C-alpha cells in the first residue's frame, strides 16, 4: 500500500538555494574506507561549483548525496550534515529533495527509460503525480530549453549521444529543480556531443536560475563556467573550497599529487594547446612520442582501400568505411579520432579480422619467434585461431568484456597457456605471470577476481594480459576512459614499454590529451581519412567542426565569463 500523500514542504521561497556541508562523510555498506570524509563548505545561492578530484575521491558520491540517493536509496554510514537551502538531506525524504535537485548522470544510455522523447521528459513528472495538462505544457518547454524542440515523437535510440544527453537534461529540467547536479555529463560523448552538451550547461549557468554543481573532467571547458571549486583527494577528503580564480599554486600542487587532472591555468606544461601532465610533458616532444622507441621499421599493418557496407536497414545501406587506406610501422603509435559514426569502431573490427571488408584488403604482420617484428602480412579474418594472438591484440573501452580468467594471474597467463597447449613441448620459455603483474603494479592482486579490481587496475590488467604473447599490432579503444591523470600516465607508460618491442599501436580516442603521445593522428569522418599527420598539426587545426573542445580551452560560446 502506498503511504498517504503528503505535500512537500515549501521548497522554492525565492530563487535558488545554498548548499552547505558540515563534516559530511559517507561510507558505503561493505566498504572498508569512506567515500567522503569531513567535507565542510558553503556554496552560495545561484553559484556554479566545479568539483575536482582523482578517481575514488567521492565526486559521484557527493552528487548522489545532493539528490538524496545517499543516504536514502543506497546503504551506508552517514556523518555530519548536508543542507540544500533549508532542507536537511539526511532528514528529508528523497522525493522532496528530488523536487528541488536534478541530477544528470554520465552515461546517456543507462539513464533514459522510455522509448519516445516526450515520454522520457514526462517520466519525472508522472512519478510526482502531476496533472496531464501541466505535463503537456511543460514537456515541449523543457525540450525547447535544451534545443530539442520538435523532437517529441522521435525514438530515443535514434538520437546521437549529444542529443541523448540533452534529452536527459530536459528530463531533469522539466521538474523545475532549483539545484542542478551534473556528474561527468560529457564523459561518454564524442567531440560534437560534448560541445553541444557543454554549451547547454553553460547557458544554464549564465541564466543564474539554478545553483549548479558540476563534475567534469574536460577541465579547460568547465573551469570558465565555475564560480567556486571544491578539490578532493583520493581518500575523499577536502583539499580546498575556494573561488575558482583564487586557487594558489600550493593548493593546485596538492590536487596534482592526489592523481587528479589539474587545469592548465593552475599548473602543468603546455603542449599543442592541450593540458599535459608534468610527467608526460617532461618525457616527450610533440610528435616524437614519449619514451625511447625503435626507429619506425617494417610495415606491420596495411589497409588498402577498405570498404565496409552495413546491410540495408531503415536508413538504407550504410557505408561505414569508404575506401580507407592506412599503414602502420613497427614501433609506431597512431591516434585515430573522429566523431561517432565516423568509422572508428568498424576500422578496429576490420583490423582485428572480426569483420571482413566488403572491398579492399587488410594485412597484419607478426612478432616472430625471435621477438622481432616480421612483415609477413596476412589477412586477419582468415587467420587460424592459433595464429591470431601473435598478430593482433584488442583492448575494449570496457576492459571487463575482455577478461577470460577468474584471477589476475590467470588472466595474464591465459593467452600463453592456450598457445602452449597447442605446441606441446616446442616452447620452454618461462611464463612469469607474477613478474608481469609486478611490473604492472598488480603484484599484490595476483589471486584477485578481475571483476573486483578498480577501474584503473582493470585497465592495467587488460594490458598485462597481452605481455607474455605480445601481438604485432595492438588495437586500443579509449584505453584511458574513466581514468584520472595518475591512471592515464600509468597506462600510457605501460603502452610505451610494450611499444619498445616494436609493436604497432592503433589508439582510438575522443581524448585530445592522448594525442601528443602519438606519432601520427589519423582523423576519420564518414568512413574516410580526412587528416593524417603529426599530432601538433592536428591539434592546431582539427578538420571537423565544431572545433572548440579540441582547441586550447574551448570555443568562445562555451566560455561564458
Amino acid at each position: 500500500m502506498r503511504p498517504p500523500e503528503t505535500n512537500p514542504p515549501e521548497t522554492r521561497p525565492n530563487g535558488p538555494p545554498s548548499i552547505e556541508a558540515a563534516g559530511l562523510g559517507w561510507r558505503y555498506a561493505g566498504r572498508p574506507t569512506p567515500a567522503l570524509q569531513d567535507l565542510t563548505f558553503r556554496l552560495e545561492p545561484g553559484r556554479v561549483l566545479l568539483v575536482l578530484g582523482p578517481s575514488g575521491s567521492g565526486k559521484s558520491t557527493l552528487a548522489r548525496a545532493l539528490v538524496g540517493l545517499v543516504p536514502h536509496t543506497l546503504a551506508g554510514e552517514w556523518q555530519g550534515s548536508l543542507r540544500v537551502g533549508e532542507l536537511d538531506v539526511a532528514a528529508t525524504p528523497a522525493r522532496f529533495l528530488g523536487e528541488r535537485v536534478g541530477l544528470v548522470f554520465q552515461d546517456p544510455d543507462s539513464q533514459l527509460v522510455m522509448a519516445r522523447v516526450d515520454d522520457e521528459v514526462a517520466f519525472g513528472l508522472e512519478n510526482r503525480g502531476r496533472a496531464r495538462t501541466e505535463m503537456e505544457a511543460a514537456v515541449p518547454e523543457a525540450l525547447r530549453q535544451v534545443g530539442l524542440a520538435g523532437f517529441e515523437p522521435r525514438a530515443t535510440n535514434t538520437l546521437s549521444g549529444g542529443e541523448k544527453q540533452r534529452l536527459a537534461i530536459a528530463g531533469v529540467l522539466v521538474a523545475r529543480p532549483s539545484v542542478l547536479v551534473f556528474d561527468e555529463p560529457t564523459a561518454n560523448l564524442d567531440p560534437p556531443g560534448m560541445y553541444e552538451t557543454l554549451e547547454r550547461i553553460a547557458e544554464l549557468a549564465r541564466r543564474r536560475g539554478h545553483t549548479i554543481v558540476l563534475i567534469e573532467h574536460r577541465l579547460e571547458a568547465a573551469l570558465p563556467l565555475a564560480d567556486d571549486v571544491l578539490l578532493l583527494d583520493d581518500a575523499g577528503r577536502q583539499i580546498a573550497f575556494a573561488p575558482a580564480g583564487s586557487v594558489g599554486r600550493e593548493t593546485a600542487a596538492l590536487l596534482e599529487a592526489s592523481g587528479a587532472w589539474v587545469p592548465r591555468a593552475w599548473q602543468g606544461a603546455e603542449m599543442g594547446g592541450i593540458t599535459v601532465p608534468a610527467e608526460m610533458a617532461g618525457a616527450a616532444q610533440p610528435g616524437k612520442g614519449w619514451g625511447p622507441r625503435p626507429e619506425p621499421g617494417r610495415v606491420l599493418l596495411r589497409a588498402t582501400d577498405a570498404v565496409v557496407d552495413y546491410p540495408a536497414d531503415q536508413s538504407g545501406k550504410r557505408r561505414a568505411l569508404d575506401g580507407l587506406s592506412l599503414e602502420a610501422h613497427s614501433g609506431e603509435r597512431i591516434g585515430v579520432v573522429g566523431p561517432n559514426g565516423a568509422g572508428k569502431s568498424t576500422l578496429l573490427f576490420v583490423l582485428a579480422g572480426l569483420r571482413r571488408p566488403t572491398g579492399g584488403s587488410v594485412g597484419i604482420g607478426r612478432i616472430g619467434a625471435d621477438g622481432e617484428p616480421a612483415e609477413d602480412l596476412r589477412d586477419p579474418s582468415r587467420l587460424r585461431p592459433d595464429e591470431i594472438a601473435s598478430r593482433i591484440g584488442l583492448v575494449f573501452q570496457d576492459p571487463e568484456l575482455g577478461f577470460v580468467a577468474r584471477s589476475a594471474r590467470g588472466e595474464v597467463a591465459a593467452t600463453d597457456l592456450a598457445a602452449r597447449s597447442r605446441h606441446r613441448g616446442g616452447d620452454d620459455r618461462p611464463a612469469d605471470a607474477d613478474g608481469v603483474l609486478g611490473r604492472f603494479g598488480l603484484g599484490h592482486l595476483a589471486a584477485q577476481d578481475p571483476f573486483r579490481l578498480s577501474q584503473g587496475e582493470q585497465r592495467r590488467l587488460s594490458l598485462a594480459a597481452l605481455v607474455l604473447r605480445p601481438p604485432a599490432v595492438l588495437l586500443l579503444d579509449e584505453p584511458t576512459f574513466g581514468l584520472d591523470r595518475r591512471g592515464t600516465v600509468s597506462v600510457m607508460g605501460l603502452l610505451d614499454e610494450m611499444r619498445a618491442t616494436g609493436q604497432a599501436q592503433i589508439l582510438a580516442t575522443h581524448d585530445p590529451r592522448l594525442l601528443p603521445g602519438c606519432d601520427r593522428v589519423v582523423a576519420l569522418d564518414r568512413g574516410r581519412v580526412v587528416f593524417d599527420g603529426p599530432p601538433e598539426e592536428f591539434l592546431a587545426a582539427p578538420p571537423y567542426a565544431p572545433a572548440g573542445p579540441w582547441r586550447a580551452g574551448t570555443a568562445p560560446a562555451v566560455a561564458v565569463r
Partner: protein
Amino acid sequence: MSLVSSPLAPVRPDFLTRVTPVARLASGLAWLVASVVTLDPVVPIRLAIAAVIALVLWSGLPLRRIPGRMAPLGFAILSLTVFSILLSGANADRSVAAMLEFGPVRITPAAVSAGLAVGLRIVVIGLTTILVFGPSDPTRMADSLVQQWRIPDRFAYGTLGALRVAPFMAEDWTLVAAARRLRGIRSRGVAGRIRDAGDRLVVILVAAIRRAERLALAMDARGFDGGIRRSHFRELRVGWRDWLTIAAALAVAVAALMLPR
C-alpha cells in the same frame, strides 16, 4: 527480441496502431488458444491467413520487414516440423500406406499432417506476436498494462528498463566472443563449449547488472517509486476500436475452429 517492435521501426498510423495494446493482447490470446486446441493443420492455416491479412491491411507495419522479424523463428519452425514428421507415432501404423520409405524411415500422411500442424502453430504464434507488439513501442504496452490492467508501476516500467538493457547484452555477447577469439582461447569438445558459454554469460551478466543498477539509480533520482501515485502523460482509453478488434478476433478464432474442414 526481433518479434517485439523495435522503436527504430517507423510505423505509419493505421487501424491497429490506434487500438490500445491490451486490446491487441486479448485478441492475440484468443488466436493463440484457438491455434492450440486442435491437432490438425487446418485451424492454424486459417489463422495464419487471417493474421497476414490483418498485418497487410491494418497494422501499419512495412511488409518487407515481416520475413526478417520471423527469421529467428524460422529455424524453430523448420526443425520442429521436420522432427515432428520424422518422429510421429503415426509412422508406425502399418495399416496406412507410406508416402515415403527409405531404410528404417517411413513417413505416413498422418505424420505429415501432424508435423505441419506443429510448424504452422509456431507461424501463428510468430505472426500474432507481431500483430500484438508490432504496431506500438514497448512504452505504450507498459502504459497500457499499468492503466488498463492495473499492473504495478514498478513491475511494468522495471520491465521496460530491462528491455532497454537487452540490446546492449547482445552487443556485449559478440564483443566477449571476439575477445576470446583474439586471445587464442578455444574450447574443445561439448563440455568445453558449455563451460565457455557459461564463462561468456558471466561476463555479460556482470555488465548487464552494472548497467541495470545505473538505470535504477537514474530512475530513482527522478522520483520513481517515490511513494506518490503516478500520473500518466499519455492517457489510454478503451474505445469502439478496441471492442471491435476484440470482437473481430474472437469471431475469426471461432470461425477457424467451427467452419467445416
